[in-house]
């Protein structure tokens, strides 16, 4: 490689002959005479160009040959492009007029830029201004509802939440569907570390015509972020900041004091009298009332207050964000230096996200032919919070409501579990020490991440037509995670409530680097005016490496704080009995390497007929040597119809362009180790010899597949861009079909092989859809303007083929995989989208009328289907009053006997949830009146279900775990088999009495032991959300100028202002964990253990000095 580099440099130095040069000068201003700094000035048909300085002036040097018949092209964002024939003039002053459309906006595409009017592919763009207008921590979230064909879903409301971006649905199942993120030319894994205020623009490449240049990484679309650059002119200082008050939107209702005691009294009694007795003596009710002198019995609690612990663990919070940038420069040197700080305090106890960021960009013109640029960005962030879930329960937050709602001072009986021993297993819902607030306080996982990106490039205009560019990027990251769990969390508390140990500590670090070197040559083919042709060829090398270490210790001495433990990890408890209370491990990652060649040709004729062809060849280290290479061709044509002569008289059409593209892109998002057998260390076994645990090696559980190859997506796109009615209405309509073949799928293989699965290129998926976006200026006045924009996305995703040995079943195991029925609650099915929920069809509950009653025994009438043994488990409290083997009993949950075989069993499980929306979209209104600006942003999702596992988890018995919990308020009116009469719990068997007791029941008897997936937990998840409302006021320029300020705007906004939905859970937008329970394939639309979103009131300030 070195030799080649030398050759390259020598070539650069020797092959250039410098011709005699001439200088052209000039000045660019707006209609009102204001100098425009940063405007681009270019010699048409060449790469020779410059930018205007702060006073609007420019100087351009070019050879005599180049200046012969030269045309100068002037561009400035938001202004109409102007051309000027140079002739013999050497000074050119020009006035630019504001643009009323976006045709001349620069769109960033792979390894270059293009004007929107010359675009042949499907690219959606959003400006940094629109992103900065949404006051969220993660800029990706601000894209929500703004881009046609781009679906943005935030995980949930936790600080530092993952934001998932899906371009046209995504074609993979087992592999990542994340788009490729490119920031200032450098590929990164996420854009969460870039403050919205520093973003100049975001361009999303959607079809193969635009993404194929990224080859093996382009299949899921490419999100290109361009950060702000310095402009020539005087030094400018910008400050943008806001403060934010976050408020809960909603809590789910829970039982009041009396209902809580009554519910658990009955349920405990249904399990065993011993539990009921323990409950009675806890509250001094029933037989225990007299023992504790509680004359009112349970009625006493009708006037006792109840706490919903959700409120104790999740409430108001405060966040703030600041961004300061200094920029400036001359015609030759431009720079920007930015710093930002964000402190986002979570609504949940002990959760936060903080980010500090510094970035620097420099552009140095060395000569007319040589340009150097350098940019660097350092980000340090930390995230605290734990939303891990426990099966049957959810996260600590989502199950917080289950804690005893009645204050300890209101307990009239005995809470001491040394005396009231049956309570011993229920400390987590009964004893103050373990209340969810204390648990959250006692468990603190904090992850720290630091990244440094540096990118340098040299651009050399070899001739007026040929430009060479070499770009070297290097990034580094250092991540660290520290987790402390204290005495309460680990149960290191003795019978007296004293700490036996302080807690457990764990530290893990990982660090790595990535190197990227790209060389491109772009050539503007000299042709006559009618033709325009541009060629880019390039070569790219990517390399990366990583390593990690971790250590943990258990049982630090009582009195240790988390900080002390982290500082003295070796002070863990050295157990004389040999139990190992520490561990450490390290790993070195497999490098990912990629070598690539690519090229692109753009050709246009008469500016009417545009053709683009791209090609990329990639070689990736992630595949076996025989399958390393992938080739990705794409082509696109566009026809600017408005330029045709027959359109010249149709004045209401300003722009009309038809685009057609076809191409192939790949997805290499797999681990590098899947094609060969790997063994790795298991750490210590639980197996011991003479109580000494052992070190072990195991091969991977996936059998190696040396035949793995690229996942390839073929995309077809037909699009129409138009601007109508004097540039008042513009829009885009795209129709596409993406087909992913050789789908890389985690495939289960027959267990007789000794392995469970393999990765294989089997099956295919497709996405087809329509994206429509319109934007219109409804009113254009100097003082008042009103504009609106809307985009609608209809995407139909489909699994087209699966290998015959893939049954597509997978589980979230939210109710514990072994127990939950059906075990597999999701399925992949050919002809259907990814992620459908399967389960039983809910049909209410059995009533007295379904049974014959004889001598205390309810026998199911013939013709009424029973539920097979093992589906819903024991229905506590009913066994003694029904024939052995019968599950049904009055009040028991009822399911449809789908196949009509007279019994509800596994054969009646069907698809009950369609989790993919029929359409999604967003619309916005923007208005200005004098100094005021008002913006409303809406987004919606229609036609998708949400799988409310939180609710299902709250509406079954869960014998050991479920006892003594507080419950959702809806359970107050659930079917009852116990009544409280004269302060005593009474079992009701008589049919008429049972019927009377349950005349107003609104839910089944939630006493069954096993979690069951049924349509009871499937709800319509459609929603329309008013995402942000912003009202701003910019102080008059002449006023603020007097105090030395260029611009001053204050604003207030409400984020998550209003959601219209029929969904009964906390928020219909759920994407908490797409691999809940280690699911093999995505668990779309699952609401389990989610962290609800806040409603945020923001007050902000934008100042420019």
């Amino acid at each position, binding site marked *: *490689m070195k030799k080649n*580099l030398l*050759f*390259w440099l020598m070539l650069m130095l020797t092959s250039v002959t410098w011709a005699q040069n001439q200088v052209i000068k000039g000045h660019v201003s707006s209609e009102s005479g204001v100098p425009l700094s940063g405007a681009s000035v270019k010699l048409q048909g060449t790469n020779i160009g410059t930018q205007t300085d702060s006073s609007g002036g420019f100087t351009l040097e070019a050879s005599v040959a180049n200046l012969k018949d030269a045309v100068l092209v002037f561009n400035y964002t938001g202004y109409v492009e102007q051309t000027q024939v140079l002739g013999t003039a050497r000074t050119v002053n020009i006035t630019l007029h504001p643009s009323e459309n976006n045709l001349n906006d620069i769109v960033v595409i792979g390894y270059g830029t293009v004007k929107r009017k010359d675009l042949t592919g499907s690219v959606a763009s959003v400006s940094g201004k629109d992103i900065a207008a949404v006051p969220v921590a993660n800029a990706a979230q601000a894209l929500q509802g703004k881009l046609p064909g781009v679906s943005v879903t935030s995980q949930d409301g936790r600080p530092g939440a993952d934001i998932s971006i899906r371009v046209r649905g995504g074609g993979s199942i087992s592999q990542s569907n994340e788009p490729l993120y490119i920031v200032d030319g450098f590929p990164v894994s996420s854009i969460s570390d870039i403050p919205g205020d520093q973003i100049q623009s975001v361009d999303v490449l959607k079809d193969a015509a635009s993404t194929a240049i990224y080859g093996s990484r382009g299949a899921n679309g490419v999100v290109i972020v361009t950060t702000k650059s310095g402009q020539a002119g005087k030094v400018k200082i910008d400050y943008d900041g806001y403060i934010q008050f976050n408020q809960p939107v909603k809590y789910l209702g829970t039982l009041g004091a009396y209902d809580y005691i009554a519910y658990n009294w009955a349920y405990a009694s249904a399990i*065993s009298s*011993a539990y009921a007795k323990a409950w009675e003596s806890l509250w001094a009710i029933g037989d225990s009332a007299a023992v504790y002198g509680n004359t009112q019995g349970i009625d006493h609690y009708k006037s006792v207050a109840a706490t919903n612990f959700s409120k104790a663990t999740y409430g108001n919070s405060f966040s703030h964000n600041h961004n300061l940038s200094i920029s400036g420069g001359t015609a030759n040197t431009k720079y920007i230096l930015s710093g930002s700080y964000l402190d986002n305090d979570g609504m949940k106890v002990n959760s936060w996200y903080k980010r500090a960021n510094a970035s620097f960009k420099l552009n140095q013109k060395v000569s007319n032919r040589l340009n150097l640029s350098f940019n660097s960005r350092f980000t340090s962030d930390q995230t605290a919070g734990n939303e891990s879930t426990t099966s049957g329960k959810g996260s600590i937050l989502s199950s917080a409501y289950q804690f005893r709602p009645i204050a300890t001072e209101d307990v009239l009986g005995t809470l001491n579990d*040394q005396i009231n021993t*049956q309570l*011993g*297993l229920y*400390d987590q819902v009964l004893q103050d020490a373990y209340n969810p607030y204390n648990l959250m306080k006692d468990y603190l996982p904090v992850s720290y991440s630091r990244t440094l990106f540096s990118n340098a490039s040299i651009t050399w205009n070899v*001739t007026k037509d040929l430009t*060479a560019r070499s770009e070297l990027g290097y990034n580094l990251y250092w991540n660290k995670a520290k987790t402390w769990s204290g005495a309460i969390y680990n*149960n290191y508390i003795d019978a007296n409530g004293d700490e036996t140990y302080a807690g457990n500590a764990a530290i893990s670090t990982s660090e790595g680097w990535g190197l990227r070197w790209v060389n491109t*040559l772009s050539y503007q083919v000299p042709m006559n005016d009618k033709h325009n042709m541009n060629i880019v060829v390039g*070569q790219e090398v990517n390399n990366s490496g990583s390593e990690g270490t971790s250590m943990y210790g258990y049982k630090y001495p009582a009195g240790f704080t988390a900080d002390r433990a982290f500082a003295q990890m070796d002070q863990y408890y050295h157990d004389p*009995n*040999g*139990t190992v209370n520490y561990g450490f491990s390290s790993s070195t*990652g*497999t*490098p990912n390497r990629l*070598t690539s060649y690519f090229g692109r040709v753009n050709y246009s004729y008469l500016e009417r007929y545009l053709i683009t062809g791209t090609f990329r060849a990639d070689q990736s280290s992630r595949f076996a040597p025989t399958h390393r290479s992938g080739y990705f061709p794409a082509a696109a044509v566009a026809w600017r119809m408005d330029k045709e002569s027959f359109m010249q008289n149709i004045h209401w059409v300003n722009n009309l362009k038809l685009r057609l593209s076809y191409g192939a892109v790949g997805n290499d998002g797999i681990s*590098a*180790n899947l094609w060969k*057998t790997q*063994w790795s*260390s*298991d750490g210590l*076994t*639980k*197996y011991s*010899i003479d109580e000494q*645990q*052992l070190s*072990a*090696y195991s*091969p991977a*559980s996936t*059998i*190696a597949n040396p035949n793995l190859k690229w996942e390839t997506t073929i995309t077809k796109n037909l699009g129409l861009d138009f601007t109508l009615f004097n540039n008042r209405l513009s829009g885009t309509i795209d129709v596409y079909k993406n087909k992913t073949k050789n789908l890389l799928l985690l495939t*289960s293989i*027959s*267990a*007789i*092989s*000794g*392995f469970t699965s393999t990765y294989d290129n089997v099956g295919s998926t497709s996405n087809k859809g329509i994206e429509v976006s319109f934007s219109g200026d409804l009113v254009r006045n100097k003082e008042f303007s009103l504009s609106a924009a809307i985009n609608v996305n209809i995407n139909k995703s489909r699994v087209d083929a699966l290998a015959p*040995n893939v049954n597509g079943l997978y589980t979230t195991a939210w109710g514990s995989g*072994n127990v939950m029925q059906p075990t597999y609650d999701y399925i992949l099915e050919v002809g259907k989208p990814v992620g459908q929920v399967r389960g039983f069809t809910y049909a209410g509950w059995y009533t007295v009328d379904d049974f014959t009653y004889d001598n205390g025994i309810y026998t199911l009438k013939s013709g009424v289907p029973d539920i097979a*043994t*093992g589906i819903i488990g*024991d229905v506590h409290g009913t*066994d*003694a009053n029904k024939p*052995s*083997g*019968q*599950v049904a009993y009055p009040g028991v949950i009822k399911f449809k006997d789908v196949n009509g075989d007279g019994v509800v069993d596994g054969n009646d499980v069907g698809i009950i949830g369609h989790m993919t929306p029929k359409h999604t979209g967003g619309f916005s209104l923007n208005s200005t009146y004098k100094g005021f600006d008002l913006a409303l942003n809406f987004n919606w999702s229609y036609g998708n279900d949400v799988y409310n596992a939180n609710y299902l988890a709250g509406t079954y018995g869960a014998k050991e775990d479920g006892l003594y919990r507080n419950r959702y308020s809806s359970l107050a009116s659930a079917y009852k088999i116990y009544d409280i009469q004269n302060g005593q719990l009474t079992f009701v068997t008589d049919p008429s009495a049972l019927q009377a007791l349950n005349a107003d029941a609104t839910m089944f008897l939630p006493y069954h*032991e096993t979690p069951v997936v049924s349509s009871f937990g499937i709800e319509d998840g459609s929603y329309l959300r008013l995402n942000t409302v912003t009202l701003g006021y910019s102080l008059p320029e002449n006023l603020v100028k007097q105090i030395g300020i260029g611009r001053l705007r204050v604003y207030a906004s409400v984020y998550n202002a209003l959601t219209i939905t029929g969904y009964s859970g906390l928020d219909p937008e759920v994407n908490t964990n797409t691999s809940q329970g280690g699911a093999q394939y995505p668990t779309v639309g699952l609401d389990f253990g989610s962290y609800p979103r806040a409603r945020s009131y923001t007050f902000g300030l934008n100042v420019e000095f």
Partner: protein
Amino acid sequence: MKKLLYILMGALIITGISCKKEFLDVESPSAVDEDFVFSSTGESFKVLSGMYELWRGVNNNLFYALDIPGSDAETHPEAFAAQVRHVWESLYPSEPNIDETNFTSAWAGWYQIANRANIVMEALAQKTEYTNAIAAGTTNDWTQMYGEAAVFRAYSYFQLVRYFGDVPYFTTTIRTASQTDSAKLTSRDQIYDGEINNLIKVLPNMYRLGQGGITAERFSRTFAEGLIGKMALFAGGYSLRRTDFDYGAATFTQMGIEKWNAKYVRLTNYKDYYQIAKTYLQAVVDNPGSAYLITTDTRGAGYDNPFQLNFQYNMNLEVSPESLYEIGETQGQFSERPYAFGRPSGGGSSNAYPCKSYGQSRIYPAFYYGEYDPRDKRRDVTVGVSANSGSCSEKLVDFTPGSRNLGGLFNNKWDDSRMMNPYTASQRQSGINWPQMRMSDVILMLAEADAELGDEGAAKTELTKVRSRAFSQLDQATKVTAYIGALSGDALKDAIYEERKLELAGEGLLRYDLIREGRLPAAIKSIRDRETAMVNGLMTNGYYTFDNGNQISNYIWVKAVNVADYGMTKMLTNECEVDTTDATYPIRFPGWRGNCDLWTSSGFTDASGNRNLAIKGLFRYIAPGSAEAIALEAAGYVKTAWGINIVNNASQYSSDIFKGYPDAYYTAGVPPRYLLPLSTETISQSNGLITNGYGFEQ
């Protein structure tokens, strides 16, 4: 032209900056390949460690669901309808879901271990240290590990055959998924032959227990011989076979009729296998290495129960000298003993004395009351009547279905309270090992083989060894010598099975003994009849008298007492050797109960609180309202529900027993359908070569 040159040169450069091919050959030192893994005995043993770890996990679920609760002595605690596993255990009163995770994960686990065993054997066979030792007929660490791998494979296939019948069989390593494409079911006979012969081949180069540092927490030659014996008895025993499968030249003796395309048969030449069993079991008995049958109690006065000492070793977290193989559990990590298979506790998940123990392993009252000789010292060690409360006190068990102190009589062989170092930080982590084969099992198997092969003298000698230690010196003449002396023919064989029950109840071995000995249909009928008679007696009379004179009653009288008040210094009781008239007798009888004496620092001392139970009327009917009852109540005893909860849950103790095998089946000679189905995945990925048998869904 010049421009063209530039382009050309540029293109050349870019093509030129291609890197060497090796640039794309990447690897991480964290992932290791086979060459490294098998580079030394130390590294190689880590592979075996990984297999032992798998073994620890994979056997548990089916054992828990089927082996522990499903014989004519052992049962489960919860209501029949409460758990789907009761459907499998009781021979399918309704059709099972063929994709039950318990079935599929056990299946996958054993194949995983077997394939890894093949990897190990193939790798070690390449080692010159191994081949030299084999050539020289010597044993070293390489040959020992090779032998352990062979045992892993044999044991895995034994489990697969025992639970699933005929299964696919591989003796070479699978490295690519396509190798299984043509796999079919292999006859269980071929699998038994293949694995027994492989073990016979490798065992001369393995260490016996005690040699080469090998303890019963690893597979030894001693265990390999015992395993051959056990597998041979299964190979020569009855099993459910498909009529839609070709067993080649094998011929069978059939019991009963055909149903579900299946029959309950044994090989005509079964004695060949009994002969193999005899050879290798005799080898264990003759040369057991460091293992031995514990026949003397070294603990001194108040104990005198060598049978209990075996389990006490487990509870002391020591390997018992009686064990040939124990799964090595670790304290603070995991153990099902006593959590699932031992004395229940009502404690909390942590910081309880002792923590929660669920109690999956339960005992039929008809077995406890009716089959143990009242003088048999194994009864109280094996079966308990008072659970741990969780706050260092006794709690009478309740026959109401449920867990912990509910669910009826329980397996008392392992008990938190009896541990040398009880673990109270968390439930299910006692660290007590899982003994999978112990000497008395081997001796009784040898007795069985001897009896079947006609050597009754030898059979009686072996039977005597085991039975003898169960009785005190005083009882030897009548209970042992005379009893055994009178046996011959089928009575001897029956007595050997009965002895297995008395000796091994609660250890989960009996269900498959019943199956292989062809005893299952009759045993089902017998236990159900005897339990039903008991239920009826309780219902009609308030008590029921068993043949041996023991009575179970609807009510017994119980009093919580402080042992210090009775002059006792320990809450934990041992063997009952006091006179029935002694004041401490109701506390000490039945024996082997009470609570741990080690929790004094937590305030649980023998002098404080009423932590022990005095029990009256457990084996003798006391009529409620009788003078005796009134006197007991006056003395502080409380009339407590006992058999009445059996009456209240009559179906649990009668018709629900082996509910899938009703009396009509017994009469008609229907084969017992005890095998597990193959999963949809196994069938659908077999290219049509594998189908489910025994009437299971395809």
